């Protein structure tokens, strides 16, 4: 039971004054962002704004030069990525990352085995373990009929959905999605958007995603963070972001996107 409250919802992930330097290049420069429980939060910005880098810092792929990342009350700045995955922070990649030499079913099965700690046991047979659960996860992204196919045979949109099912295997609290609908047909997009919305609404899962499709962002995000050259430019509701003149100048003012 939640108590309605005018104060901001508790944040599940907070990034505080994070900088990420690669040699002399500042991919992130003093960025702070908080992700609230159950919120759908989009990060937008031109290429090279630091969106993917930010996701990499939160998921643990990169260790920031400065600043901190908290997950609930825990400081996780130095927690290795596989442990963050076990703690409930799941992610997808801009270039879809699946096990191409496994069947679709085995992809999800492995994710379940890993998340539940089975993989530590050298004599616990894999066999048909978690077959039904794997099937349910695939049904959720509507590729249950492809279970026996090899991951490498799938079309781009199906791969993305498989990656999504892999990410959901650990019952994550936080989903970090790098361009979740890129390369998808509009029907596939609807499926993914529908899942994201229901995860947020029904299970209070927080979703932080980057996206180039501006309409998708403004239709679905509760809040939007606009980034530019490694800095956080604006953060707010879609309406606030839409009307912010700085956003127009830096990002939305670019050519065709002006209609936003």
């Amino acid at each position: 039971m939640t108590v309605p409250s005018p104060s901001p919802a508790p944040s599940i992930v907070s990034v505080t004054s994070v900088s990420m330097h690669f040699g002399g290049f500042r991919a992130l420069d003093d960025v702070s962002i908080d992700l609230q429980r159950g919120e759908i939060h989009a990060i937008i910005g031109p290429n090279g704004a630091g969106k993917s880098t930010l996701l990499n810092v939160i998921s643990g792929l990169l260790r920031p030069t400065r600043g901190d990342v908290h997950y609930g009350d825990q400081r996780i700045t130095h927690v290795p990525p596989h442990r963050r995955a076990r703690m409930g922070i799941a992610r997808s990649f801009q270039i879809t990352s699946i096990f191409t030499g496994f069947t679709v079913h085995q992809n999800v099965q492995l994710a379940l085995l890993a998340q539940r700690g089975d993989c530590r046991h050298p004599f616990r047979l894999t066999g048909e373990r978690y077959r039904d659960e794997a099937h349910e996860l695939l049904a959720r992204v509507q590729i249950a009929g492809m279970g026996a196919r090899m991951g490498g045979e799938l079309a781009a949109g199906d791969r993305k959905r498989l990656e999504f099912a892999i990410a959901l295997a650990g019952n994550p609290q936080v989903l970090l999605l790098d361009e979740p609908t890129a390369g998808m047909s509009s029907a596939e997009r609807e499926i993914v958007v529908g899942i994201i919305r229901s995860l947020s609404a029904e299970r209070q899962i927080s979703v932080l995603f980057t996206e180039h499709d501006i309409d998708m962002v403004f239709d679905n995000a509760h809040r939007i963070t606009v980034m530019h050259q490694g800095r956080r430019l604006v953060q707010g509701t879609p309406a606030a972001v839409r009307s912010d003149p700085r956003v127009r100048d830096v990002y939305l003012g670019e050519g065709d996107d002006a209609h936003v």
Partner: protein
Amino acid sequence: MTVQPLPPLQPAAGSAASMRTKTIIGGGLIVGLYLLPFVLGESYLFLSIDFLIMALFAVSYNLLLGQAGMLSFGHAAYYGLGAYTVAILFNKLAVPVHIGLLASPFIAGAIALAVGWFAVRVTGMYFAMLTLAFGQLLHTVVMGWYGFTGGDDGLPVMPPDWLLPARNYYLFVLTVTLVSLAALRLITLSAFGTALNAIRENRQRAIFVGLGVRNYELGAFVIAGAFAGIAGAMRAPLQQMAFPSLLHWGQSAEPVLMALAGGIHTFAGPIVGAAIFVFTNFVITTYSEYPLLVFGVIVLLVVLYLPGGVAGAVIDAWERLRRRAR
């Protein structure tokens, strides 16, 4: 050198009929192997012992190369350490070889843990170079430590009387090898083994489903080292001697070549590779001084024309035949 993405080692869900065929073939093979000493002459029995030891050595290695995608160039170090465990226990503490053999996986595994702890911090070629360097380091230590290892003179090993007849030693080696191979087979089919497949397939995705990949690689390295130690422990009593050359990097090339010849994608591949290796060595040494040269050419041809190895090619052909029969 990167390892090609491979299909997972798990068998496709086979029909009950094919399972039954497999059980019959496997059971028949095992019975046949136990009956072998009653039909074969002594020199062929020694050849068979050699094959069994090399098969275990190659399969232990393939846990790294085929399953986890780790190219180690120092696997002989653990093989040699197994041989020296038996030899040193026998010489210093008068422990009989069949008891010393029980200690060999623990000694070889412990040293593999120490080496692997450093080696798994890097991947690919750097991992290969580190394992090679550590292997040569261990070789140098064994070579130079006269008081403990006998240095380059080697260390004599005398099996007890009941293990001296070729037939008895064959049955002993056969039993140890079959039990070891069964354990390795379980490991390859376990959740741990599946995790190794996943790491080989896509290291980054493996991390982000929650696998601490270095720990898994270290685990594979230790298990592979321990079983190589058992293989080495059976080698010393066969030659009645432990030599430093058992740890040498030239020896490390053998499991790599055997695995490649037989095929690294299947569990049986390295066993087939070991059979080809031991048999060509036997035939060729009669005519030539360079058996490894001939085997090297065989491996080269296999890698070029049968990239799945001999076992992979046979399985493919069998599948094709079955599909046509249907």
